[in-house]
């Protein structure tokens, strides 16, 4: 840039004397003229002679490069647009020719409860949802068996029952080892390694296999030439190719490969381990300066597993002003007590050029007398994704460049940290609503970009906040007994109002040619009592422990499989220890049906002896509720807990305890993994549907039908019909009401 002035000067000084004289006009004038010239050189550099020196020069060059590239892209898009449109027309005819709506906007409010929505609408707290109810539809939406998010959202997108999409829980059971594995995706490192000294160098790609089967309905739309923007719908990791853009949601792992492992860095010495979801990392203090580290993934170069990569960082606490200065790599920032950092990029270096890129946020918990910093799980960096988290890969990069880094972890709101009292209520909410705001920005960007087609976005905040704050809704929830009633905040009411305001802003962006649907995958109920099904199986002779043991460790440690006929892991599934299927199976296949029936009979209506309430309101044999090629992968029985009950924390992790029933005193105090008949979701829509008992499985066929597409024969859902007067004006004009 500076040199551009030089070149100009040079050109001039080598001209004739007359030119020289004319150049001299600057000389005797004011300094302002010189400054003006500098401005001119910067803003209007001569293309041929502009030496835009290092630093300054990059600015000019890169900005013109951006314009140049944009121009090329735009030119290409403009020139080829008619041909592409013609090609489409010839191939598929007019994609929107038979469509009832130009656009469908489907907002998923994970876990929005119809009873609470009804109550708040009645109190006048949700004016926008009430408008939808009055003008269009508000009804309960039947959920899946079991009513768990990955199951229900998989059904939402594929239009089929779990027997056809293969997702039955967050976790599935490895019948060879009686251990869980993530049900939605399998990530395998490169198969080949070459050992050189201490290194084991991987060759080939990391393999990510989607476990969810079935075809999301936006693929059918894409094949018909209809564009979709799909944001954070659960169980969309790994992302699949289709015509549109997609950002993966629930089930995206963190950089460690877990579903979210937070880190508490502390000067307090403790040998206690968190039950799940987090690790404690020591902070070393020397001369007032503290050092700690963020644990990362295992080194891909280590010959043996367990060699954890780390990023070290420095904390300089200043107790006088309740803040600390943190240095993480090249990032330096100051945090006040009780404040989160922005997303900080961190890079785990394994050596030989093998690096993993992540982002995390730091939260200053304490500066004196002890120093404590909470670090969120290390999310995959959306601007530099080491694993594919979007389709196309550039979509997450686009969003990160446009709005800054954002949470990519499937379960981004750190419920475990609140459960373990590492975060308090306010810190958790700040984190959850921070993520929520990012999601809103993505939604509105997608709405702006998708004027035709499908725009769908799932918000998890509704689910996480209800899970963690249901305790304040009830008079005597075990998890809130220590909090006086007058100090209990209206967190859930506030949540519903926020969602209502979001709906209001979305309604401002749409017209009559857009169908707006607001759905939830399930509702919510209290989780006040835990039921350890493994303990019940043990006490009723279906599960045996090794001699002398009265309890087991996690994942069936000390279970005697040779005498065990049934076991449970995960949230609702119950498995027979079937010969030929389980590694140490004991139940003959011929006896299986009778045993299922026997257990069903005993469990159905199980009463909590302490309260007299029914802990289990329904037990379902999966063979009766599922149809499809993957039914064999399902648990043998699904347990439908009663309202107020859920599988105990220990039972979920395959632990046998002495007591069957106990209070749930964790902040995670509301739940939905119960009898699906008790927790339907919601359906709001801007246009009225005629359907008495809509179900989440019907959404996919309904959308396809509204876009004028024929329905695949394997669909289990049935499309809803629009009320005649509710069709958009252009359709109503040509379609006589019947």
């Amino acid at each position, binding site marked *: *840039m*500076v*040199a551009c*002035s*030089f070149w100009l*000067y*040079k050109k001039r*000084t080598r001209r*004739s*004397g*007359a030119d*020289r*004289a004319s*150049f*001299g006009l*600057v*000389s*005797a004038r004011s300094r302002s003229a010189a400054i003006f010239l*500098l401005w001119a*050189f*910067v*803003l209007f550099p001569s293309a041929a002679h502009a*030496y835009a*020196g*290092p*630093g*300054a*020069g*990059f*600015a*000019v060059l*890169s*900005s013109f490069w*951006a*314009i140049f*590239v*944009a*121009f090329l*892209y*735009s030119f*290409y*898009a*403009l020139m080829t*647009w008619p041909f*592409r449109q013609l090609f489409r027309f010839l191939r598929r005819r007019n994609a929107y020719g038979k469509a009832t709506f130009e656009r469908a906007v489907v907002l998923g409010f994970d876990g929005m409860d119809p009873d609470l929505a009804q109550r708040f609408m009645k109190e006048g707290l949700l004016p926008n949802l009430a408008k939808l109810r009055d003008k269009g539809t508000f009804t309960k939406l039947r959920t899946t068996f079991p009513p768990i998010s990955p199951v229900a959202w998989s059904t939402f997108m594929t239009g089929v029952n779990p027997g056809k999409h293969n997702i039955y829980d967050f976790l599935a059971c490895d019948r060879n080892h009686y251990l869980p594995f993530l049900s939605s995706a399998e990530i395998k490192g490169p198969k080949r390694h070459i050992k050189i000294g201490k290194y084991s160098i991987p060759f080939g790609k990391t393999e990510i296999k989607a476990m969810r089967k079935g075809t999301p309905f936006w693929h059918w739309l894409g094949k018909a030439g209809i*564009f979709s923007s799909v944001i954070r719908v659960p169980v969309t990791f790994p992302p699949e190719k289709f015509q549109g*853009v997609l950002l993966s949601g629930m089930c995206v792992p963190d950089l460690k490969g877990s579903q979210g492992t937070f880190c508490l860095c502390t000067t307090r010495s403790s040998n206690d381990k968190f039950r799940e979801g987090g690790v404690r990392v020591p902070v070393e203090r020397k001369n007032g300066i503290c050092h700690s580290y963020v644990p990362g993934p295992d080194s891909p170069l280590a010959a043996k597993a367990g060699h954890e990569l780390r990023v070290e960082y420095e904390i300089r606490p200043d107790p006088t002003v309740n803040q600390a200065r943190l240095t993480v790599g*090249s990032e330096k920032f100051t945090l006040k007590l009780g404040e989160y950092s922005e997303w900080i990029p961190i890079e785990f270096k394994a050596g030989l050029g093998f690096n993993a890129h992540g982002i995390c946020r730091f939260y200053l918990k304490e500066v004196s007398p002890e120093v404590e910093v909470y670090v969120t799980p290390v999310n995959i960096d959306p*601007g530099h994704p080491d694993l594919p988290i979007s389709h196309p890969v*550039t*979509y997450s*990069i*686009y*969003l*990160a*460049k*446009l709005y*800054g880094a954002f949470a990519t972890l499937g379960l981004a709101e750190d419920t475990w940290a609140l459960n373990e009292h590492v975060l308090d209520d306010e810190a958790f909410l700040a984190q959850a609503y921070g993520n929520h705001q990012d999601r809103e920005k993505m939604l509105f960007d997608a709405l702006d*970009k998708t*004027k035709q087609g499908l725009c769908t976005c799932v918000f998890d905040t509704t689910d996480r906040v209800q899970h963690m704050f249901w305790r304040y809704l009830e008079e005597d929830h075990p998890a809130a007994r220590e909090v006086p009633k007058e100090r209990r905040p209206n967190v859930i009411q506030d949540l519903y109002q926020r969602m209502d305001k979001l709906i209001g802003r979305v309604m401002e962006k749409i017209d009559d040619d857009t169908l707006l649907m607001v759905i939830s995958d399930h509702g919510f109920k209290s989780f006040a009592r835990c039921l350890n099904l493994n303990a019940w199986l043990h006490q009723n002779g279906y599960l045996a422990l090794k001699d002398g043991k009265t309890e087991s460790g996690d994942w069936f440690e000390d279970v005697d499989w040779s005498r065990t006929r049934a076991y449970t892991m995960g949230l609702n599934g119950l498995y027979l220890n079937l010969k030929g299927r389980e590694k140490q199976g004991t139940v003959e296949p011929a006896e299986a049906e009778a045993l299922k029936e026997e257990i069903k009979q005993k469990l159905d209506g199980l009463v909590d002896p302490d309260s007299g309430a029914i802990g289990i309101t329904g037990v379902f044999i999966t063979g009766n509720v599922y149809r499809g090629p993957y039914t064999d992968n399902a648990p043998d029985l699904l347990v439908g807990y009663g309202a107020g009950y859920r599988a105990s924390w220990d039972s979920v992790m395959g632990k046998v305890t002495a007591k069957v029933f106990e209070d749930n005193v964790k902040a995670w105090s509301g739940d939905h993994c119960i009898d699906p008949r008790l927790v339907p979701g919601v359906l709001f829509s801007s246009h009225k549907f005629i359907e008495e008992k809509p179900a989440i499985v019907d959404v996919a066929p309904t959308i396809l039908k509204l876009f004028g597409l024929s329905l695949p024969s394997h669909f289990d859902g049935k499309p809803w019909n629009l009320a005649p007067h509710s069709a958009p004006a252009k359709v109503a004009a040509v379609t006589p009401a019947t």
Partner: protein
Amino acid sequence: MLSVVVGLVMVLLFGYTSDQKAIGIAKDQLKAHLLAVRLYRDQLHVVMGSYGRVLRGTGRYLKLAFKPLLYVIIPITLLIVQLDHYLGLTAIQANAPFLLTVRVNDPRVLDDVSVGLPPQIAASAPPVHIAAENQVVWRLVANRHGDYEITVNAAGQSATKTVRVSSELAWLSQERWRDHFWERVFSSAESALPANSPLESISVDYPERNIALGIAGYEMNWIWLFFILSMIAGFIFKELLGIKV
């Protein structure tokens, strides 16, 4: 080597004087709009909207870059001017003719201009008077390497101009000016002519100097080489230092 050092210094200077966070955001947004054109290429309203945003974003980016550019512009301009005295011109070769041009401020003085030459320099042709441009031009030849002073007389006053005859790299001043502050800053390495002098300028036409690339006889002006090397160095250093430019 100098290019590399300049690359480093300029990047550092840019880094310290700019709003790195804002520049980072502006650049990211530019990239986002470019990606939008690609992601939504079938949607014409997005493509055209993104193009508009790229233009606006570029303006914002340049605005952010302007302050650090101001800090960088002065030292690098002066540096390049000085380097050009050394690298941009070739000294007069022995026995090769060159022109000495004297420009006066009053055409009536033209006939009164003469030069006093040292013994090693001789005129190879009579002076040419260009009345329309107030100039007198001499064609001269030096027969030996060295630094010489040529005296120019006009209207009873005299002034000198240094002429450097050499086959080596040399510090060269093409012109000597009266007044003309900016011209002197940019093109002269000599003191100004007296303010009351009838002479406007005295110049020697040192030929431009190119650097042989050693590839198919190609030559390049030093500034292009300087540009390329300092840019490469700058790119490397900005990455190493994490400075957003």
